[in-house]
C-alpha cells in the first residue's frame, strides 16, 4: 500500500528495538474485552484507478453545469473561479500545513490570513475580522453568543428573513443554553419589520441579514438606530458578500458585528461545504470575539512578522472560559477567498457586483414583462422572488426535465409563499440562459 512505507524488515527491526514480538503485542495495554472482534468488514482496498471510476460515477449523478442551468442561490452561489486560485491553494505548503502555531515556519499562512482579515474588514466596513469560522450559519450563532457576552444578556432578536437554515442553527446553539429568541416578521416590501423592536427590553442583539434570504436589501441604518437605542448590538448577517461591491457595507450603516458566508469568493459550492464563516466587529469588542486572530509583530531582529494572537480568548488557553470552542476553522477557505479578492481587486469587485445586479434586473424585468409577478418591491442584489401562476409545482418539474432548475420553491420555508420561487442570477448566467428560462416558463403557461 503506497501510503504505508513500512517494509517487513522495517517492522521486524522496529519491533526488536521496542522489545515486542508482534504488532499485536503493541496493543497489550488494551484489555481483551475492549478489542474489536474479528476484522473490519470494509469494502476495498480499491486501486487509485478504481477509485477514479467510482467517484466519477458518483459525480456524474449530480446536476451541474454545463448540462443543467441552475438558478439557485439561497446561501450558495455559483460564481466563476479563476484557474489561478485553484492552482495556488493547491500548493501543498498551504493545503497540508497545520494551524500556524509555530509562526517561524508558518509565515505564508499567517500573512495570507492577516491579509484576509484586512480584506474582510474593508469589505464589511468593520475594524477587525477574525481568521474565519466554519460557515455563515455558525458565524451568526457565534455573533449572537458574543453579543450576549458583551451585554451580559440572554435575549436576542432576529429577522425572519435571515436564511431559514441559519435561524435553525442559531436555535441549536442558543436554546440549550437557555436563550430567549424573538423572531421579527417581515413587511410586504420584502424586508424585516422592525417596528416590534421598540418595546423589547434587555435585548443583547438584533440580527438582520442583508441582502436578506429573499434577496432584498434591508434598511440596516434603521436597524442600527433601533438596536442602539435599545442598548443592544446590531448584527448584520449575509450570505452573498459580493453585494458589498455595489451596496453600502454593513459597517458604514452602523452594524457592530458583521458575519456571514464567504463561499461566493472563490470557494466551490461542494454541495454546501466547506464554506467560510466571515466574522468582523468593531475594535472595542475584539477581546470578546470568537475564533482565531492573526496579528502583526516583530521578531528578535526587529523584522516584521505575524503570529496568532489574543489566544487568551481561546479554548486551548481558556478552556471552559473561552469565547468559543472553535479550534480548526476554515483556514484554507479564508486564504482562497483572499486570493479571489486579490484577483478581483476593488475595481473588479465593483464591476462584477454591478454585473450580477444588472443581470438579475434583466431577468426580473423580462419576467415582469412576461406577466409573472415580482411580489417584493425592495431593491435586490442577484436574487429575487418571482411569483408564478398556480400550478407552479408541475411547471417546476417540467423545467427540471428540461435541465432548468428554476430557483428555490419558497413554500416550504414560509407560509403564504406558495408558487413563489427564489431565483438567483450571477455572472455565470448569460442573457441567453435567462431568455430561455423566460420562454420556457411562458411556454409552460401558454403565455
Amino acid at each position: 500500500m503506497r501510503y504505508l512505507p513500512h517494509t517487513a524488515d522495517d517492522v521486524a527491526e522496529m519491533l526488536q528495538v521496542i522489545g515486542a514480538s508482534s504488532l499485536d503485542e503493541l496493543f497489550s495495554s488494551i484489555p481483551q474485552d475492549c478489542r474489536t472482534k474479528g476484522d473490519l468488514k470494509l469494502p476495498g482496498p480499491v486501486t487509485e484507478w478504481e477509485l477514479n471510476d467510482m467517484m466519477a460515477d458518483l459525480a456524474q449523478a449530480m446536476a451541474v453545469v454545463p448540462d443543467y442551468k441552475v438558478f439557485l442561490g439561497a446561501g450558495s452561489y455559483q460564481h466563476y473561479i479563476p484557474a489561478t486560485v485553484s492552482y495556488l491553494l493547491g500548493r501543498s505548503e498551504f493545503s497540508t500545513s497545520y494551524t500556524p502555531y509555530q509562526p517561524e515556519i508558518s509565515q505564508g499562512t499567517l500573512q495570507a490570513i492577516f491579509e484576509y482579515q484586512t480584506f474582510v474588514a474593508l469589505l464589511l466596513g468593520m475594524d477587525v475580522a477574525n481568521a474565519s469560522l466554519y460557515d455563515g450559519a455558525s458565524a451568526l450563532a457565534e455573533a449572537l453568543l458574543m453579543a450576549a457576552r458583551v451585554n451580559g444578556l440572554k435575549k436576542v432578536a432576529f429577522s425572519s428573513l435571515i436564511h431559514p437554515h441559519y435561524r435553525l442553527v442559531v436555535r441549536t446553539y442558543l436554546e440549550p443554553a437557555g436563550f430567549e429568541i424573538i423572531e421579527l416578521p417581515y413587511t410586504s416590501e420584502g424586508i424585516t419589520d422592525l417596528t416590534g423592536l421598540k418595546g423589547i427590553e434587555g435585548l443583547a442583539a438584533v440580527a438582520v441579514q442583508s441582502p436578506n434570504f429573499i434577496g432584498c436589501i434591508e434598511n440596516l441604518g434603521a436597524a442600527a438606530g433601533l438596536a442602539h437605542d435599545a442598548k443592544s448590538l446590531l448584527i448584520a448577517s449575509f450570505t452573498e458578500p459580493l453585494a458589498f461591491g455595489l451596496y453600502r457595507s454593513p459597517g458604514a450603516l452602523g452594524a457592530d458585528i458583521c458575519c456571514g458566508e464567504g463561499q461566493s469568493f472563490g470557494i466551490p459550492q461542494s454541495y454546501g461545504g466547506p464554506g467560510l464563516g466571515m466574522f468582523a466587529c468593531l475594535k472595542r469588542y475584539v477581546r470578546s470575539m470568537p475564533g482565531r486572530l492573526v496579528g502583526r509583530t516583530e521578531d528578535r531582529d526587529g523584522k516584521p512578522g505575524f503570529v496568532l494572537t489574543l489566544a487568551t480568548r481561546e479554548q486551548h488557553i481558556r478552556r471552559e472560559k473561552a469565547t468559543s470552542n472553535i479550534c480548526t476553522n476554515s483556514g484554507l477557505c479564508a486564504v482562497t477567498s483572499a486570493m479571489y479578492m486579490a484577483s478581483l481587486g476593488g475595481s473588479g469587485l465593483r464591476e462584477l457586483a454591478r454585473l450580477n445586479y444588472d443581470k438579475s434586473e434583466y431577468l426580473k424585468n423580462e419576467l415582469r414583462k412576461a406577466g409573472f409577478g415580482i411580489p417584493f418591491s425592495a431593491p435586490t442584489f442577484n436574487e429575487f422572488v418571482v411569483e408564478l401562476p398556480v400550478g407552479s409545482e408541475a411547471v417546476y418539474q417540467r423545467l427540471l426535465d428540461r435541465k432548468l432548475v428554476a430557483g428555490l420553491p419558497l413554500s416550504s420555508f414560509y407560509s403564504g409563499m406558495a408558487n413563489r420561487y427564489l431565483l438567483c442570477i450571477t455572472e455565470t448566467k448569460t442573457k441567453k440562459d435567462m431568455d430561455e428560462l423566460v420562454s420556457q416558463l411562458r411556454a409552460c403557461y401558454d403565455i
Partner: protein
Amino acid sequence: MKEFAGSIGLVLNEPLLFDKGKRGRVGISMPRRDVDYFPVDEELTGTGPDFPDLAEIEVVRHYTRLSTWNFGVDTGMYPLGSCTMKYNPKTNEKQAALPGFAGAHPLLPEELSQGVLKMMFELERLLVEITGMEAVSLQPAAGAQGELAGMLVFHAFHKSRGRRRSKIIVPDTAHGTNPASAALCGFTPVKVGSNDRGVLSVEGVAAAMDDDTAGIMVTNPNTLGFFEENIRGIAEIVHARGGLVYADGANMNAVLGIVSMGDIGIDVLHLNLHKTFSTPHGGGGPGAGPLCVRKHLEPFLPIPRIVEDKGSFRLASDFPLSIGKLHAFYGNVGIMIRAYSYILSLGPELKRVSQLAVLNANYLKEKLKDILHLAYDRPCMHECVFSDKLQAPLKISTLDLVKRLIDYGFHPPTIYFPLVVTGALMIEPTETECKEELDLFVEALREIVKEAAESPELLHNAPWRTKVRRLDETNAARNPRLTCAGVVERSEE
C-alpha cells in the same frame, strides 16, 4: 554529522498585498456583459471597498512566495501530537475537485443529487463499521463542532427524560475544546485527574459522578497516548447514574480495527476526518467532525439525515428529538469526499494504519527516552509525551528544544500539552513516516540535546534559518495590529 533537511536556500521576500498594485489593474477575467446597465438606488450604493487592484501575475507571485514560507506535510515530518498530521493523498484532492461534486448546489432537488447523497450515506455506513457505533451524522464541520453536537445530544437525551443536568466530568488531560464545548451547552465541567499510569481510575470517576452530572467526556486513547484501560468500568459507573459517555475520537488513529468504541461503553463519539482520515489541514481547516452514536441516541442526531428509500437517497428532517441543525447545509462535503476516498483506498488495511502508527510512536519512545524525560515510562499508543525535565537544569525549555528542531528541517511536536505534564513535548509520528525518517528525527534530537549542554545559545536563539526568527507574541497581544495599518481606517470615536 549527518546531513539534515534544514538548509539555507533562496526564499523571496514579498510585501503585503496592500502595498502592491495600482488602480485599474485586474487579476480576474471579467465576464462578458451581455445586458444593459439597470438603474440602481444611489442611496443604497457605496463606493465599494478599497481593495488593491492587481494583475494576475502579481497575485500568482504573491501567493507563490508566501507559500514558500510555510512548512507542510509535503515538506517534511510533522510530528504534532494530538493532531495526526499524516500524509494527505493527492488522489483525494482530485476526487473532491470533480465538477459534479465541486459544482453541486446544496439545494438541488434530491433526484439530481443522488451522487453526493449516496457518497454521504455510504460514508456513514463505513464509519459505523470502523467505530463500532450505530449511527452517524456527518454534519459537524470540525472536531470541536462534533463535541458541541455531542454535548447537545447529552442535553437533549436528558431533556427527553425530563431532566436537566448541569455538570459534566472532564479529565484534566482533555483537550481545551472539551470543556469549552461542554460550557457552550451550559454544562459545568468537573475536572478529574488521571492515576499514576496516566489513565482515569474507576474510583476517580465514581467519586465525581452524581445525579446532576450529565456524563463524562473522555479521550481514548487519551492525550498522554494511553488507552483508557478502565473505560468499561467507568462507563458502567456513569451509566448506572444515568449519565452518558462521550469519547473524543481525535486519537482514533491508534485503534482503527483494534477497538470497537460501541462495545466498550461509549455512547457518543466524534471523529476528526482531518486527523484520522487523511484530509489535509489547510493551515487550520476546513475539517469535519462526524458524530457517531449508539442506537438509543440516534433520534437526537442533527438534521437533516440521509435516508435510503429503495436504492435512492433523500434528506429527512422529521426527527422531533433531533438537536437541530449545526451547519448551513450538510457539513463539509468536500472533506467527506476525501475521507471516503481514503477509506475505500485502504479498506481493511485501515487496521494496519493503526498498527504502524503505534509501532512508530513506540519506536521513537524507545529511541528517545534516554535523552528526553518520558512523562510515563510505559508502552504508548500512537503518540508519546516527553518533557524538558532533563534539560531544565541547563535552562533549556521545551520551546528551545523544538525551535531548534526547525533548523534541522522538522516541524516541532505539540508542546505544553497536555497540561498535566509540565513542559510537555508530545510526539505523534503517524504511520506515514518511514523508519529512516524516524531515525533522522532521533538523530536530530540527539544533536540538539548535545547542543543544549555545549552551546545553549544555539537553542535559545533558534530557529536561525527561517524567514523570521522568534516573534514577539507579548507585544502582539498587548497592542493588537489585526489589519494592515493605514488600510482599514474606520474612525470609530
